[in-house]
């Protein structure tokens, strides 16, 4: 039985009409022409998002931990994914790439966009080996670059710069691939796990960061999502991909307070389950599993 609890909030916020629906079985209507859909998968403590275009293109952003690979595979299949046109690897930590070796074996991949920063883990070595052995097109992210996917989708790579290098071994988060999608009047900002240092450099770069939907960096950790950054991005929605009762205290209360102060409507995968955002470039519809 399809049980949709139609708690609909209609509002006009920054010119964008918003509707929010809770759907325990997460039934999403087929994508219509002129729509873009972004799924923020509930992968526990980790990140995984799927971007789908109306011409059948799929962009996967990260893949969560290894133990979520089967669940992610099932979700992608259920969402009609047969091939991944672009895989974005924001950075090589296991909560972002752990599931990739399995996914790379299950789906055809046309192109990979990677931060390209060395990390000695077995999972990252496996990912790079598979990309090489299958001759998948590999592109290192370069600030200022624009990648087209299908007929209507364009990713603006905002970070890192092409000459970015890991200056100390704890800088992988700040080297995360950050990109923005503009779709009509609606925009999405994906921030990986960047922290204040990268946020500061992004602000200093003068690139357009203003976005309707913000994928909050680093699972809502206090290490990022500064007031200064939020003032510029000014999101109507903030999505936090985070595991329930995680060991790290994510998301930080201070981050939630800052998001609240800026007026962003916050969705969290630990509380809302998988979050699906559909837009026609003017209106935004959010469906959550709970």
């Amino acid at each position, binding site marked *: 039985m399809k049980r949709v609890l139609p708690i609909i909030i209609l509002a006009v916020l920054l010119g964008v009409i918003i509707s929010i629906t809770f759907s325990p079985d997460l039934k999403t209507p087929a994508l219509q022409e002129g729509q873009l859909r972004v799924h923020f998968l509930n992968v526990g403590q980790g990140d995984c998002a799927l971007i789908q275009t109306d011409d059948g293109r799929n962009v996967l952003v990260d893949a969560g*931990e*290894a133990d979520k690979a089967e669940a992610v595979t099932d979700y992608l299949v259920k969402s009609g994914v047969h091939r991944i046109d672009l895989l974005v690897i924001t950075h090589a*930590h*296991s909560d972002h790439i752990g599931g990739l070796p399995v996914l790379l074996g299950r789906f055809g991949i046309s192109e990979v966009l990677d931060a390209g920063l060395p*990390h*000695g*883990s*077995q*999972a990252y070595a496996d990912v790079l080996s598979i990309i090489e052995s299958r001759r998948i097109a590999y592109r290192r992210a370069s600030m200022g670059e624009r990648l087209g996917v299908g007929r209507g989708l364009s990713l603006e790579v905002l970070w890192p710069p092409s000459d970015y290098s890991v200056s*100390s*071994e*704890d800088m*992988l*988060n700040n080297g995360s691939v950050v990109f923005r999608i503009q779709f009509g009047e609606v925009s999405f900002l994906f921030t990986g796990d960047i922290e204040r240092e990268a946020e500061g450099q992004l602000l200093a770069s003068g690139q357009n960061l203003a976005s309707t939907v913000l994928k909050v960096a680093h699972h809502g*950790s206090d*290490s990022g999502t500064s007031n200064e950054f939020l003032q510029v991005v000014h999101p109507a929605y903030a999505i936090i991909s985070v595991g329930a009762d995680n*060991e*790290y*205290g994510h998301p930080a209360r201070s981050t939630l307070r800052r998001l609240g102060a800026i007026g962003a409507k916050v969705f969290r995968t630990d509380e809302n389950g998988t979050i699906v955002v559909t837009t026609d470039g003017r209106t935004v519809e959010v469906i959550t599993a709970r």
Partner: protein
Amino acid sequence: MSDRSFRAFVDRIEGDKAVLLAGDREQHRVILPAEYLPDGAAEGTVLTISLKSEPEMTAEALAESERLLQELKDQDKGSS
């Protein structure tokens, strides 16, 4: 019983915690206080974790437990 050691990779530091990937295929996630890491270890460092049985400390811990239990049993006897 012989001591054991295994490989662990410091995948990341999350605040005051170190996230290690342990085992031949890094299939086990081990989270430790970051202060437990040896000097110079950071994100990206490969470690060897050694496990060693300590029979003396084991006996001491067991003796302490037995002592506490005996105290409670004695109190129980006294109250009945």
